[in-house]
C-alpha cells in the first residue's frame, strides 16, 4: 500500500469516528471536539491523496492550512457560545432563586 493511502484511510476512519461521536455524545463541547476530529480526518484525506511518489502537492496543503484556520475560528466561536449559554442559564437560575439571586457575601 502507498504511503498516501495509509494516511488517507486513517483520515477516512477518523471522519467516521468523529461522526459517530458527534451523533452519540450529547454535550456540545464534546460535539465540538468531535467536529474537530472529523475536520482533521478530512484534511488527512486531502493531504494523503496529494502525496505523490516524491513530493506532496502544495495545492491541497494550502487548502488544508486555510481549512485549519477556518476550523479554529469556528471552534473559538462555538466554544464561546457554549460557555455563554451555560452562563446565561446559570444567571437565570440564580435570578429565580428565592433570595433574588444576590451574590453571597
Amino acid at each position: 500500500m502507498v504511503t498516501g493511502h495509509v494516511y488517507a484511510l486513517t483520515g477516512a476512519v477518523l471522519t467516521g469516528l468523529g461522526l459517530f461521536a458527534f451523533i452519540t455524545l450529547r454535550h456540545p463541547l464534546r460535539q465540538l471536539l468531535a467536529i474537530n476530529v472529523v475536520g482533521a480526518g478530512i484534511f488527512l484525506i486531502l493531504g494523503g491523496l496529494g502525496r505523490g511518489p516524491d513530493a506532496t502537492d502544495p495545492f491541497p496543503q494550502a487548502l488544508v492550512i486555510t481549512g485549519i484556520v477556518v476550523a479554529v475560528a469556528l471552534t473559538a466561536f462555538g466554544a464561546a457560545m457554549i460557555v455563554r449559554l451555560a452562563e446565561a442559564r446559570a444567571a437565570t437560575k440564580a435570578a429565580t432563586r428565592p433570595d433574588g439571586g444576590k451574590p453571597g457575601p
Partner: protein
Amino acid sequence: MSPLDLLVAVPLGFMLATLLAGRAARWLILLAVPAMAGLAFWLVLVSPDAAYLIGHWDLPLGILLRPDGVARLMVAATALVIGAVGLHALVDPPEKAGNAAQAETFWPLIYLLWAGANAGFLTTDLFNLYVTLEMVSLAAVALAAMGSLEAALRYFMIALVGSLAYLLGVALLVARYNTVDVTLLSQVAQPDLATMLALGLMTAGLLIKAALFPMHGWLPPAHAAAPAPASALLSAIAVKLGFVILLRLWFEAFPAVTGQPALHVLGGAGALAVIYGSVQAMRQQRLKALVAYSTVAQVGYLFLAFPLVAGAPDPSGAWAGMMMHAVAHMLAKASMFLAAGLMLKAAAGHRIGDLGGLAQAMPMTVTSFGLAAVSLMGLPPSGGFTGKFLLLNAAIAQGAFLYAGVMILGGLLAAVYFFRALSACFGAGPAPREPAIRGVCTAAPLVLAGLAIVIGFAGSALDTLSAIAAPWAAPGVAAP
C-alpha cells in the same frame, strides 16, 4: 476595475471601517447602500465576457469570477435586501435593549454576510465557495444568537456538520480531478464512486444549509427568535447560498453524473417541504414562527424545480421560474420579517391572536405584510406568481402533475395561513403599544414588498437576465 471583485472588496472594506469607527459605525450604511446598489447595477449590465481569473492565474490553480444570470440576480436581490434591512436597522436598532455589544457588532457582521454572499454567488470555485459558505454561516449564526443563543448553538452545530460534509466532497474532488472549478469539472466529471460520493456529501451538506425538509429542523427556532432584521437576512440570503451552490453542482459541474432518479429525490423532498412547511405554518401560534415555517415551504419550491428544469426540452422557462421564485422569495420574505418585527413591537404579545387592531394603527406595515404575502402565495400580479406560473407550465408540459398539484396545494395552504395572520390584524384588539414608528422603518418593508410585486411585471427582463451564461445554454452541456 470590475464590479466582480468590488462587490466583495467594498463590503469587506466597510466591515473594517465599522471596526475602526466604533460607535459611529452604524452611519456607514448610508455610504454602503448607494455604493453597493451602484455596483450591483453595474454587474447587472456588465457584458457576459467580464468573467475573469483573479490575479490572472490560470485554472486549475486560480479562481474564476463570473457574472452569469444567477449571480446577477442574486447579487442584485442581496443588495436590495441588505440595503433595506440596513437602513431599517439604522433607525430601529436591532439589539436587545441596552446591549452595546450587539449594537456594535451587528454592523461588521452584516458586511461580512454581504461580502460572503456576493463572493459565493460570483465564484465558480468549489473550495472558494467553502470559505464563502463559512463567512455567511458565521455571520448568520452570530446574528441568530442575538435572539436566542440556544437556537443559534443548534444552528451552529448542524451548520458545521453541513460544512464538513461539503468540505469532504471538495477534498475527494480535488484528489480525483486536481481541480475544484465548476467549469473544468463539467468537462472531466465521470460517474465513478468517488465523484458520486463527493456529490452526495456536498449535496447533503448544502441541503442542511439550505434547510430543505427533512434537514430544516434548525431553521424555524433560529429564524423565529432572531431580531427582525437578522431574521430577514437569514431567511432571504443565508439559505439561498446553499441553493445557488447546488445549482452550480447539479446543473453545471455534474449534469453527466446526476440521473433523473436523483433529481426526483430532490424534487420529492422539495414537494414534501412545501406540504410540511405549509402545514406547520398553519399550526403555529406565534407570528414569527409562522413566517419561519413559510420559509421551509418556500425553499421546497426551489428544489421542486430541479427535476422540472432538468426534464424540460427547453429549460429556459423552468429555469427562469426557479430564479424568479428565488428572487421574489428573498424580497418578500425579508419584507415580511421586517414588517412582522414592527407589528410585534406594537402588538400586545407575540401570538397571532395579539395582532388585533394593528391594521388601524399601522396600515402601511400591515399593507407590506399583505403585499409580501401576495407574492409568497403566488397570487397575480407578483414575482411569486410569475415564478410559480412558469414552473407550473413546465410541470404540466412534462406531465409532472404531482409536482403541479403540490405547487397549487402549497399556494392554497399559504393563502390559508397568511390570511389567518392578516385577518387577525383587522380584528378588534387592545390598543397597540407604540403606534408611532419612524418613516424609514415603515418604508423598508413596503419597498421590498413592492419590489416583490413589481418584478412580476418585469418577467421577460428577468427571463433574459437569468438566461445569461446559464448552464443549459452552454454548448455541449445540454440537460436532456
